[in-house]
């Protein structure tokens, strides 16, 4: 081997693919038939394969546990539907296009339009803000910072990713609202001609505050996952790029970013999933109105999850059903987002593994 401690020597040490294939190979086809003691000194025929054994039972048990995941996903959909349908039947509005939310009235009228719009808008804004910054930090930790700084900093980021969302929500409402209000007023003064920064005020408890708090929350998660991905770039590919005369940034663009792309997409999608489903931070920071507006800085904004948290206590049976129906929509949105992300990752992985 080389005479220098090249990074490429153990470049594939983190590659799970190799280990897993090996592990499965080991399991495949080797099914010792029985745990029964073989006849001691019996001679005669080999012991027959028992029809029922601990092996069969254990295998069935673990298969059942694996199937449990599918059962739960189906059960979630089934039970949500079963509780949502009665409420939807009493609804006097169109659930998909109605923007108001009066499910507790004698003549209930409610719809998901404004809520779904607010959910998607705040989440997308949050990602728009946080993803570039998160990727920059991840690259800093994996390829710019000296190791002595990168290790503890990475640890801190991991810890921040574990901080409960209610803490970010509380901070956003009590301490971040004022700076955001000042900023909103400034934006309104100079950029008020843009519809997204228009309005008469009051400002502060707005989509912008919610999205910023979401962004700050999602940031450590996306950073931490992307950093791991970037660190797994094979050292020999980085060296190949450098040996072609690439600058550090060009090396990152040729070797690191393409290699990490599926992982980064997964991280971003995970962040999006978190943002879409985030409840408490938005319940604390949004202004809670029921309309569809692109205005980012006026008090207002709402999301499916925040609305559930805010309306749950006062809801009657129909109201609860309506909230469950909105939850079903949220479930569907996150399911689509997640399945898309996974599909992308699996396809990418195949392109790369078809290599080996």
């Amino acid at each position, binding site marked *: *081997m*080389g*005479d*220098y*401690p*090249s*990074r*490429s020597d153990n470049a594939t040490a983190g590659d799970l693919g190799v280990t897993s294939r090996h592990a499965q190979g080991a399991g495949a086809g080797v099914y010792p038939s029985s745990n029964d003691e073989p006849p001691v000194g019996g001679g005669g025929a080999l012991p027959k394969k028992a029809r029922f054994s601990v092996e069969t039972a254990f295998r069935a048990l673990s298969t059942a546990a694996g199937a449990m995941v599918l059962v739960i996903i189906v059960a979630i959909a089934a039970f949500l539907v079963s509780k949502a349908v009665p409420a939807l039947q009493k609804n006097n509005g169109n659930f998909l296009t109605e923007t108001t939310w009066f499910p507790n009235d004698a003549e209930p009228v409610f719809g998901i339009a404004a809520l779904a719009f607010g959910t998607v808008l705040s989440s997308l804004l949050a990602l728009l803000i946080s993803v570039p910054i998160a990727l920059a930090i991840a690259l800093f930790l994996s390829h710019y910072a000296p*190791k002595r700084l990168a290790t503890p900093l990475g640890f801190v980021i991991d810890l921040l990713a574990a901080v409960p969302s209610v803490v970010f929500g509380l901070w956003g409402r009590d301490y971040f609202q004022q700076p955001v209000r000042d900023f909103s007023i400034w934006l309104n003064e100079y950029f008020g001609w843009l519809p997204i920064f228009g309005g008469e005020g009051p400002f502060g408890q707005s989509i912008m505050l919610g999205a910023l708090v979401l962004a700050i929350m999602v940031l450590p998660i996306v950073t931490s996952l992307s950093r791991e991905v970037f660190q797994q770039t*094979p050292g*020999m*590919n980085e*060296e*190949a*790029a*450098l*040996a*072609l*005369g*690439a*600058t550090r940034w*060009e090396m990152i663009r*040729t*070797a690191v970013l*393409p*290699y990490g*792309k599926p992982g980064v997409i997964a991280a971003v999608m995970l962040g999006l999933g978190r943002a879409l489903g985030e409840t408490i931070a938005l319940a604390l920071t949004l202004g809670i109105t029921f309309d569809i507006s692109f205005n980012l800085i006026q008090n207002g904004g709402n999301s499916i999850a925040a609305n559930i948290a805010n309306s749950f206590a006062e809801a009657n049976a129909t109201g609860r059903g309506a909230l469950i129906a909105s939850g079903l929509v949220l479930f569907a949105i996150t399911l689509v987002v997640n399945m898309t992300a996974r599909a992308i990752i699996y396809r990418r992985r195949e*392109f*790369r593994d*078809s*290599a*080996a």
Partner: protein
Amino acid sequence: MAKRIEASNVSSYYGDFKAIDSVSMTVEPKTITALIGPSGCGKSTFLRSINRMHEVLPNARIEGRLTIDDQNIYDPDVDVTAVRRMIGMVFQRPNPFPTMSIYENAVAGLKLNGVKKKSILDEAAEKSLRAANIWDEVKDRLDRPGAGLSGGQQQRLCIARTIAVEPQVVLMDEPCSALDPISTLAIEDLMFKLKDRFTIIIVTHNMQQAARVSDKTGFFSIDKTGDPGRLIEYDDTQKIFSNPSQKKTEDYITGRFG
């Protein structure tokens, strides 16, 4: 195009550890020079010092003077990326970019240099793949992943990638150690062909290979583990393998040591 490399008193370090101790040698243009020696003797470290890849590793540094046509590549005002464009490198293990196709791999260096025009890229891809003796094998599947080729093909693809940017010197760090005999032969043929255009320095464990391909051979050795590697003898390949002037070289060549 090919250039002369001159090393005088080059010592390389990893942190406090001295990997090679004051190596001096001159490599003439359009020759193949083989560096041989036992494991850990510093020949790869020396090779990586020539295109400043040594300093990519943390805490690695170098002392002494290394010039390419009388320009010291370690002068403070030297652009590292220019050095590496001028002195290309092929690594021990084939390392095509896993996310790129064969075509993209071949022109990766050109794209870095800002070449965008499709016709030029196409021409350069074909030319370098032909030069690397791999064109006939891949011309029908240029859009397939580069990592899908066999080991020997991958290595030739890496050579194509390296020569596509038209360097003046090509460094090869045990390019055949991960390959089967037939692929090795293909690469050796390729080296003879490339010799017309490039200065080639190759590190190898395989003494037959050194004897077969090189014009000059340098023998590196260490006294014991932890000591820095030294250049024991550097001479015409024929002389090294038939009548070495140093006892150590003779021992190594005849298999009595290492």
